[in-house]
């Protein structure tokens, strides 16, 4: 791995985390922040320890999860434009969340669970659809099934929103647009424990991901167990994405931009790429979240808005660079 790339990445991550910690409605200078951290009982320290630190960590972990999911899916479906949401998971999660909100459930605890359940349902549906079409895990069939399930879920979400009272509607929109306002240490802990296994598994499958991107026959002739690996990667990325969406709503572009940018920097070999993508997309989301809660303070923008506004021009310039 090129040492300059490693250095640049590490610096970027540290800077991003620092930025996330320092910026916000209540802004800290670096020295003030250090002082405040040492006194968790005082207001400043409480803000940092109870509110901001869990939020920054959650944004980092979720960003990392989305980035790694995106990178793995891009290899799985052999398309560098694939995003974690292509497989219908986000549609299902959105539906679950909106149902929970419409029923008046608690936004910080019951709704994420509902979203997760919705995501699992969508996953099962996509898997079933893809299997019925006769091609187990054929990438094109998977994508089509994902589009179909997303569309169906989207239609249901629209129907529910049309029939909801104004306050619930507002809450539903806010959830769908994504954000980390309900971040807590408990959530960080749950997510970290949950995501460790999928992330480890996906990194362990790095070599098979390299091979799968070459095509099924070539991959098999080089020793990959194509069907089994496909199933594993699909299930694992789906579970990881489901958790990300359940925890923080639908934050787009993270799973698309980071893998692209880092492939250009680090190279496509997944063994090196996946850890780099984890760090890079984590940092990206931390910075996006910091912007979301600072730009028009004390109002918070949904993080998804920031990632889209930043992500689209970034992606456009990346595209231009790869196409010329």
């Amino acid at each position, binding site marked *: 791995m090129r040492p300059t790339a490693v250095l640049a990445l590490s610096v970027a991550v540290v800077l991003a985390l620092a930025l996330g910690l320092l910026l916000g409605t209540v802004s800290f200078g670096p020295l003030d922040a250090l002082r405040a951290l040492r006194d968790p009982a005082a207001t400043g320290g409480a803000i940092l320890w109870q*509110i901001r630190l869990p939020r920054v960590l959650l944004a980092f972990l979720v960003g990392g999860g989305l980035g790694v999911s995106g990178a793995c899916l891009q290899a799985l479906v052999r398309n560098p434009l694939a995003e974690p949401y292509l497989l219908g998971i986000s549609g299902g999660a959105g539906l679950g969340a909106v149902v929970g909100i419409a029923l008046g459930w608690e936004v910080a605890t019951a709704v994420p669970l509902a979203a997760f359940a919705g995501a699992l349902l969508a996953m099962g549906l996509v898997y079933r659809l893809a299997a019925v079409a006769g091609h187990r895990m054929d990438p094109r069939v998977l994508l089509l099934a994902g589009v179909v399930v997303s569309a169906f879920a989207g239609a249901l979400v629209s129907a529910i929103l049309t029939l909801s009272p104004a306050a619930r509607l507002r809450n539903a929109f806010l959830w769908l647009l994504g954000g980390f306002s309900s971040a807590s240490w408990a959530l960080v802990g749950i997510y970290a424990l949950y995501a460790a296994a999928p992330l480890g598994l996906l990194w362990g499958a790095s070599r098979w991901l390299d091979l799968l991107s070459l095509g099924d026959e070539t991959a098999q002739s080089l020793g990959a167990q194509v069907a089994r690996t496909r199933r594993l990667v699909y299930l694992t990325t789906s579970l990881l994405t489901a958790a990300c969406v359940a925890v923080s709503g639908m934050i787009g572009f993270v799973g698309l931009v980071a893998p692209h940018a880092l492939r250009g920097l680090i190279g496509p070999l997944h063994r090196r790429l996946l850890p780099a993508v984890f760090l890079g997309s984590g940092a990206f989301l931390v910075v996006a979240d910091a912007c979301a809660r600072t730009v028009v303070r*004390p109002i918070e923008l949904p993080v998804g808005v920031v990632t889209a506004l930043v992500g689209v021009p970034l992606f456009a310039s990346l595209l231009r660079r790869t196409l010329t």
Partner: protein
Amino acid sequence: MTLGRGSFLSELVERAGGRNIFDDLAVPSAVISIEAVVQRDPDLVLVADAGEPGIAGRPEWRVVRAVRRRRFVHAAGSEFSRPSPRMPEAVRQLARAFGAVPR
């Protein structure tokens, strides 16, 4: 999510002798960060639903003094969400509730 200057409930609060800590927001409602609430340190929290507010139990919300001390005032019911003949009653209810909150 909180309400800003232009909203109906905010007006009721003003008439009842209270002050919306977010009355500098020109928008009727907006999402604000917990930090902003901590920074502005309200004396009490107006809750739009009946029953125990969900934020009472969450550690990141307990940084707010009013949440820690459970200074909640409930404003459930349609008289708090839009103009109606029961407006004066709504204001009286709020004023009574504000008075009952220990300093």
